[in-house]
């Protein structure tokens, strides 16, 4: 090889290496400033995308450094967002429906999971309740202003009953089962993992009714009404969630293991709820319809003191999601 060829080869090599180094570090060269965001995460397997995102460092490549503030129930997460303790929160569509009636200043950025069997009706086998009509006059424990209350009202309505026809007792979600054990109530409507805990605790002494598909519960990312910076932060959180959801789809077993470790749950429980879950990012018309129908229902069944149904579109902010995956946004703009 003569000198000239050697030089040419060396120059070509240097250029190639330079291009590769630049390409690899391209993102870090243009890395925007990192925002520290706090997310109030509801301690339920429905928050799996968040736990997985944290475990696989999915937020590292985005513009946010994420801190989790774990809470019990979407309602608490909502409260933390509203009083400024958290930038974002995870919240069920039922909570969103109830809060929209109060015209709170919040928006929904994305729906990240759906479950068609999250809220369950639990009774004593001895009560022989085979149909909702048998609930008439019974003492029923619910968590006020959540999917629990909404679900019970639907169940009753199917048989022409209202919440007036039963005795409602309000409990915190983790205290429902104790009310049941203490015989303060005849039936209760918990969500997961409290339904599972109840079966573990009481085993044969309870009956879980098959109400699959009767209520679809979705979990959503919410924040205060977003300015430009908050939309940017939401975009980055959604980018991390996208990676997490791809990971869940491609490595379901590893994802389950992450949630088991994070929530100190048993593998048995995860296997119990997992088939009911659909992890998918989306912001579509069905979410609006779901919130709207629940809001209307809450007004009509007098679960709330508000009477006006607000424009649900006002509580949806698609700007962040449109930047990440416009194909998953199907709402009238």
């Amino acid at each position, binding site marked *: *090889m*003569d000198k000239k*060829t050697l030089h040419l080869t060396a120059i070509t090599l240097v250029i190639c290496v330079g291009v590769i180094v630049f390409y690899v570090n391209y993102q870090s060269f243009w890395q925007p400033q990192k925002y520290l965001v706090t997310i109030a995460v509801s301690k339920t397997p429905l928050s799996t995308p968040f736990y997985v995102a944290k475990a696989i460092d999915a937020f590292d490549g985005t513009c946010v450094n994420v801190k989790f503030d774990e809470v019990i129930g979407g309602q608490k997460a909502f409260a933390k967002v509203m009083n400024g303790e958290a930038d974002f929160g995870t919240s069920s569509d039922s909570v969103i429906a109830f809060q929209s009636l109060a015209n709170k200043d919040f928006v929904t950025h994305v729906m990240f999971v*759906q479950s*068609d069997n999250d809220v369950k009706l639990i009774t004593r086998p001895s009560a022989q309740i085979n149909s909702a*009509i048998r609930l008439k006059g019974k003492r029923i424990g619910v968590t006020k202003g959540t999917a629990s209350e909404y679900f019970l009202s*639907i169940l009753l*309505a*199917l*048989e*022409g*009953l*209202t919440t007036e026809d039963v005795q409602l007792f309000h409990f915190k979600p983790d205290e429902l089962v104790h009310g049941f054990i203490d015989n303060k109530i005849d039936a209760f409507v918990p969500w997961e993992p409290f339904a599972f805990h109840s079966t573990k605790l009481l085993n044969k002494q309870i009956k879980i009714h098959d109400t*699959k*598909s*009767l209520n*679809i519960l979705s979990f959503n990312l919410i924040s205060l009404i977003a300015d430009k910076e908050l939309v940017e932060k939401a975009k980055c959180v959604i980018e991390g969630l996208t990676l997490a*959801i*791809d990971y869940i*789809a*491609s490595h379901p077993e590893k994802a389950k293991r992450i949630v088991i470790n994070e929530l100190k749950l048993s593998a048995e429980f995860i296997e119990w709820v997992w088939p009911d879950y*659909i*992890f*998918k990012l*989306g912001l*579509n*018309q*069905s979410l609006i*319809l*779901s919130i*709207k*129908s629940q809001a*209307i*229902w809450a007004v*009509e*069944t007098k679960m709330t003191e508000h009477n006006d149904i607000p424009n649900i579109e006002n509580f949806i902010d698609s700007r962040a999601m449109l930047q990440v995956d*416009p*194909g*998953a946004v*199907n709402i009238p703009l």
Partner: protein
Amino acid sequence: MMNGSLSQRIYFFTLSCCVLFATILGSVIWSSQTVELAFARDSYAQQVDNQTNSLKQLVISDNIYSSSYSVSHWQSLQKKLTRLLKSSPKLTPSQQTVQNSIKSQNENLKRLFSQITKNKLKNASAAIKVHLKARLMMQLEAIRSDSLQLSSIAHTDIHNTIKHEAFFIIAVSGVSIVALLFGSFTLMHIVRKSLDEVKRAFKQNHSGHFQKIHLSHPSDEFDSIVKAFNGMNDKLSETTVSLAVMKKVVEERTHILEQLSNTDPLTKVANRRALFERASMEFSRAIRSKNKLTLLLLDCDFFKRINDEFGHLFGDELLIHICNICGQEIRDIDFLARYGGEEFIIILPNCDIKGGIETANRIQHSLACHCIAMKDKEICVTLSIGVCMLSEQHKDLEQLINDTDKAMYQAKENGRNRIEVLTPPNLH
């Protein structure tokens, strides 16, 4: 590679082109298949969308709570949708997630519809009926949204595949063009440079400098030419004499030949031809510059008798002896030549008659002093010398020589071993 043959390079070059072409062709085929599959997925998503819309239409137009409502129409459409969902094409992982969602939503749809139509909700209020109908619509809307997302993913895939393919083709073509240009320029450069080197070597050969070719870019093809050329050159340089050497040899030989043609072989003094050449030159010069010119004609006395007595070899020796004596006694500018037999002429440029007589005297005296030995016997010879100086009467050289000859004969007639001068009145 650098020392390989040019044909090897060309083969390599051609092979590389073929590989690049095959790569592009392969990628085009791959991308067209990917796009085709993406179109199939898109068309599947469209069908799901259409099917869902039909169901939606049904929910909007019919009163599902009416006692006369027949569920068969719904069920057939629902079955169609379920069948369609089972016949999905191969989906990407992200599409599979959406597909799972659609399937699950479809199951919910079935359950919800059967719940609603089980007993026509005979106990339920109007509100819950409206609410459940809204739920049904929501479920359908969820499926529709998902199918739109499927379609959108397919579109994105098509777009990305085409974009990547275009980028790949441009990149491969760009690299190919650079490689082809580099390769062809290198080849051209090597061929041109090697040809130049060979040409230069031929040129130098032509001018007699036998130099070997050293290729700056060795290649098998040119190496064979160079080897043949260098071999030929070696042989040529052994057998060929350069022009300069040849010139020198010729000059030397010419000089020797000239000397031979101008020299008397016996006495080694100038011969008659050289004499006339020199004499006419000196004659012309004397006439032109009006200088004096004197000739001496010397003849050995009784030479025939000596020859007869002592033999021709001795005669020859004697003549050489006379020449040696004369040579010693004349000036550098003087010229001694053998005129014929035992006769010699000495040309004395810039010399008058007096100088001529002096020279003649010196010669005679020296010859008298140096006798020649022959068989313990000393043999002394004498010379009769005629002297004549160029005068106005002499029109040419022959007249001057003739007059000198006359003077010599007078010396012979007057008793030999003497000097005679032809004075002007006696000149021809």
